[in-house]
């Protein structure tokens, strides 16, 4: 988080300098032409407050509002929606003068392709979807497998039983990428047994919102001798953490630095977290558009770009940070290829 934030503000400063910074009395103000940029953001189901994916996007939006002085409009998704509803939401944002418009989640894939074609002058971004393409669409993608590789390696280095577990929220391709990277990271360190469980199968998405299921799955793993569990379960993660606290084993968080955001009681059981910086992607995208620097097509937030990473909060990894950073460098240099499935 910190290095990225620093980079972003340096670039911002650079942008200010480059723009000539005509305003002398108030150097903090962003030089703008006419009215401020209006940013529209449409959430996936769950919306702001889901403590996971949407919240991360919301955080990036808030930061853009605070640092770039943009105006923002957020729209939540409803249950039982069709593609027509989603397209209409994006259309309403574009029509009301929002530019750029950001769609959070692959469910917007069809809607973004369609609406972006109708509004060629508006810049669109879609998070987690490589499918929607167009000259005015930016696909914000993440190399979750690379981040998962590092937390897998960290888990393997800390495991005493040589048994590790993976709990995924819903059995979807998106999460297979997490699992594949995690397994590869573990095997890179030592031959260990890896167990995996998904809490629900699509279209049942309850695995992302059911802590009781997460707790039961993790409990079963810990009872069978597993001592590190990586959870990629969104809102069900708190259950996994509780199970880890009860048995005194390790859990690994996901998306945000959960040793900072989880319930204080369970933070001590969180070994590290796989950081997926949706907030950085959202902020960078808005920043790019404000500067007049928009890139269409996929923008991959991988280890190199700082879009994924591992967290060191809690200091449990202090002794192995050099090893992990070496692995990180090898991935960035391309010496280690992390599988995606």
């Amino acid at each position, binding site marked *: 988080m910190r290095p990225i934030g620093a980079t972003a503000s340096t670039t911002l400063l650079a942008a200010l300098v480059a723009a000539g910074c005509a305003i002398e009395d108030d150097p903090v103000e962003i030089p703008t032409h006419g009215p401020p940029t209006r940013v529209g953001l449409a959430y996936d189901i769950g919306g702001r407050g889901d403590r996971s994916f949407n919240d991360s996007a919301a955080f990036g939006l808030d930061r853009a509002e605070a640092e770039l002085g943009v105006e923002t409009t957020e729209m939540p998704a*409803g249950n039982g929606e*069709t593609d027509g509803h989603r397209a209409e939401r994006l259309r*309403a*944002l574009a029509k009301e003068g929002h530019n750029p418009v950001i769609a959070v989640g692959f*469910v917007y894939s069809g809607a973004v392709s369609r609406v972006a074609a109708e509004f060629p002058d508006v810049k669109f971004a879609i998070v987690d979807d490589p499918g929607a393409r167009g000259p005015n669409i930016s696909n914000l993608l993440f190399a979750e497998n690379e981040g998962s590789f590092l937390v897998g390696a960290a888990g393997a280095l800390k495991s005493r039983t040589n048994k590790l577990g993976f709990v995924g929220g819903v059995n979807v391709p998106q999460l297979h990428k997490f699992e594949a990277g995690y397994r590869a990271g573990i095997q890179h360190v030592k031959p260990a047994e890896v167990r995996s469980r998904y809490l629900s*199968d*699509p279209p049942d998405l309850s695995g992302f919102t059911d802590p009781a299921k997460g707790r039961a799955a993790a409990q079963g793993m810990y009872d069978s001798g597993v001592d590190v569990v990586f959870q990629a379960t969104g809102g069900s993660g708190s259950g996994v953490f509780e199970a880890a606290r009860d048995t005194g084993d390790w859990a690994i968080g996901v998306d945000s630095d959960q040793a900072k955001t989880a319930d204080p009681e369970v933070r001590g059981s969180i070994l590290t977290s796989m950081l997926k910086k949706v907030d950085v992607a959202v902020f960078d995208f808005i920043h790019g558009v404000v500067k007049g620097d928009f890139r269409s097509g996929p923008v991959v937030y991988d280890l190199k770009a700082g879009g994924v990473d591992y967290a060191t909060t809690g200091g449990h990894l202090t002794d192995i940070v050099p090893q992990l950073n070496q692995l990180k460098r090898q991935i960035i240099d391309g010496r280690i290829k992390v599988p995606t499935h």
Partner: protein
Amino acid sequence: MTVPDTFTNRLLGRVKLTGLLSLAAPVLAILMAGLITAVVLVVTGNPPIETLTLMIDYGSTPRSLTLIVNAATTYYLSAMAVALGFRMNLFNIGVDGQYRLAALIAAAVGGAVSLPGPLHILLIIVVAVAVGAAWAGIAGLLKARRGVSEVISTIMLNTIATGLGAWLLTQWAVPVAGSNNIGTKPIPESAHVPGISLIPGAPNKVFGLLLLAVLVGIGFHLLLNRTRFGFDLRATGRSESAAVASGVNVKKMIVWAMVISGGVAGLVGMPQLLGSSYSYSLDFPAGLGFTGIAIALLGRNNPVGVAFGALLWGFLDTSSNILNLHKVSPEIITIMQGVIVLCVVVAYELVHRYRISAEQRRVSRELSAPAQAQVEGAGV
């Protein structure tokens, strides 16, 4: 056929209001809902008149109207499935599971076969109806044979349908090209139902299967009012013992009512599947069965009333987008929908109570009048 004047019968629209009272109830409901919504808007710091104007302006554009009609088509089918059960005193809470399972299996079958156009469409719809009917039939059989409350069994069947659907989808699913979505194999073009340009000036089209919804509405009316089966069904709903006495096989009626209700539920996903998404994937709309329950209550289980209810619901859903852009919380819409349903229930109940007490006053007046006349006559 007299109907016992109970709360449930009044709630489900089986006790009819006549004359001016039948007009008074909806007017009262609209006034109450309008007033409460206005209060909610004022309390949340939004001007009621401006907010409503905003919604109407946005909701009356051709594009919005098309979206409203499309949403209403789906809601209508769902509500009719619920209404059919309600008419017979069966609470089919399982429409949600029935339509999801039906749409999934129909989508898989539709994607697997290749047939000439109309036949392909027919096959998909027949499969959907059959799956919905069979799934609801389980609850019907449990009720008829073992006396299991259909409320409990349909709720449980919803959960089982979710699990079964999840398993089936992972068996059949193919990744949607270049996306993180997965879904059934897309249905070939031969089974795509073309849209209708119903609203002038709209760039988008309404679902072709809007016609199917209209047919279901007409069929519902004819079935209930013009057939022996419909008579038996209404009779069983009103008084089971009276129906038995007049020779109706109640157990058979329960199973058939659930089967037909489930068959209609099977249609709920069809307009979307055959008119827009052509595949059952992770983003297929869920939860429509529960919306149907609210709309059936709102429309008082009457095919025309439900159509108005479905359109109103569609309007509210669609206009929630514009509220958001003007910094009005879209949750206001959910509150409005809840308030409207409650107001309809309360308004009809109030009018019924007024009717009952008016009848009682009239009866007691009639009873006392001749008695007085007699007393006076004796005095003369």
